[in-house]
């Protein structure tokens, strides 16, 4: 399946914004970026699995984009072909209601990434089978999400020795 066919098939079913990007390498590589609202999101992901039952889920990139939180899901379709299809699905949620449906029942491999984003960005994945913390220690304060850029993130007094390499003060020096 070519990227064009895939875009056509998705456009038939969903109202989404799709654009492609291309690398300037010897073998140009097309990547499909799909922006979808969180209501259609799960249906779209299920549709991907219909298209290719062996679709490979790779990563969730959670981001704090100022006024809203976004999550980019990267999928690889037809992973045994050359070239395979590389699809990035972007969905977003407002900060006051940070909820995105969980993909635990569609792609079981997404659960660890959801746990990761849940603790780092405070996105709540609805219906996640295993909501425990994965990376952060169990005694990390609740309600602080390290990768948030707003007041819920790390405050400056929590950070030491993680600044610029040349700004470490030596003992005794002012």
């Amino acid at each position: 399946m070519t990227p064009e066919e895939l875009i056509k098939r998705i456009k038939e079913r969903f109202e989404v914004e799709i654009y492609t990007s291309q690398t300037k390498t010897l073998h140009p590589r097309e990547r499909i970026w799909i922006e979808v609202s969180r209501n259609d999101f799960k249906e779209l992901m299920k549709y991907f699995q219909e298209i290719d039952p062996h679709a490979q889920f790779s990563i969730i990139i959670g981001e704090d984009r100022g006024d809203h939180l976004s999550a980019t899901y990267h999928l690889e379709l037809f992973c045994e072909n050359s070239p395979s299809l590389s699809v990035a699905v972007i969905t977003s949620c407002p900060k006051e209601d940070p909820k995105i449906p969980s993909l635990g029942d569609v792609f079981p491999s997404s659960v660890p990434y959801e746990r990761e984003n849940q603790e780092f960005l405070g996105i709540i994945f609805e219906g996640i089978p295993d909501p425990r913390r994965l990376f952060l220690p169990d005694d990390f304060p609740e309600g602080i999400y390290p990768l948030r850029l707003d007041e819920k993130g790390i405050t400056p007094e929590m950070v030491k020795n993680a600044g610029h390499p040349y700004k470490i003060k030596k003992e005794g020096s002012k």
Partner: protein
Amino acid sequence: MNSRIEYWVKIPIGPIHPALEEPEKFIITLDGERIIHVDIKLGYNLRGLEWIAMRRNYIQLLYLVERICGICSFSHNHTYTRAVEEMAGIEVPERAEYIRAIIGELERIHSHLLNLGVVGHAIGYDTVLHLSWLARERVMDILEAIGGNRVNYAMNTIGGVRRDIEEKHKRMILEMIRYYREEVMPKVEEIFLYDPTVEARLRDAGVIPKRIALEYSAQGPTARGSGIKKDVRYNEQLGVYPELGIRPITPKEFTGVIKGDVFDRMVVRVGELWQSMEIIEKAFDQMPEDKIKTFSKDNVALAKLKKAEGAGIGRYEAPRGETIHYVRANPGTDGPAKWKAREPTFPNLFAVARALVGEQLADVPVAIASIDPCLSCTDRVAIIDSKTGKKKVLTEKDLLKASIEKTKEINPNIKAKPEAVGGICGGVRL
């Protein structure tokens, strides 16, 4: 969980355990020695790289990314530069692509030889460990000669590579390939294809069937050992790899069967050693004379990147599997708004944890070693160590103070007064 679980033995493997090279925790529930359930807890090696990345520019980030991990330092670096190049639409000279391929394959050789030894050690076969690491020294020497370091050779830069491969390097590498072909590989094949101990321990241990591998999206040799023909260099048509005749290696070509066990994963690694050597030789034959980087100076690259917009995804087949880096530009500044990395160990760990259910305790170290875990890659995200209630952040000085106190408590007679050096924290120079 039902109430019966109370009577089963639970064993923590990790964070500090001889089976693991790096800290992480496997919580293993045992019935006798049969594993009933495996749970994973990560994050003992958190360094907050993503957070740090928001405060770095693209060139500084290059070094930070390289220091995610020592073994696959080239892979992370390479993937990151590809993500940035895709984001900004930068073209890479063809010679640079060939040099990247050569260094990448050299790194693959050293990583696979390392893993062969580690698996040998995990089954108590220390001779394999010592001999394969002895063989690995040769490629480490080459990498040191080219990049100046045994690890973290800093070959990549945005839009090309930093150093050219000269004629003397070429001679050394070809000599090394001859040595590996004639002296090392026959022994490696003898051990990993025919040795009775290896066969007894690795066959039918930690089986990841193809269905589970697809479901958990296993990567790299773990997926190929289960029979999935997945190799990012091939799927993605990365760089010049299609010209070099890349194809995914599955154990079928060597043993004729695919079981998805530890043995198959090791067979894939042995096959990839052969393939890497072929690729390097082909790359030397086809390499054109050209410049090696697009931008002569780093600040030129930064000036170009300041104008970049959008996002880029870089993918590369590291020795352990697919590495993905994501970079989103912050137009007008010289640093990215977001950088995020995903390393192959992360999905592989969950796949292997699933596969361990029903196996024996004795299979745990070898199954973990067989995915070649790189946990410092996996735990790259958070920042601080904080205690409940009051926030308390431990700096290097605090840690030093705590350790001095502890030493004093243990032995009050010690007089030495260590001082804070500053800078090094959890493997990353901050």
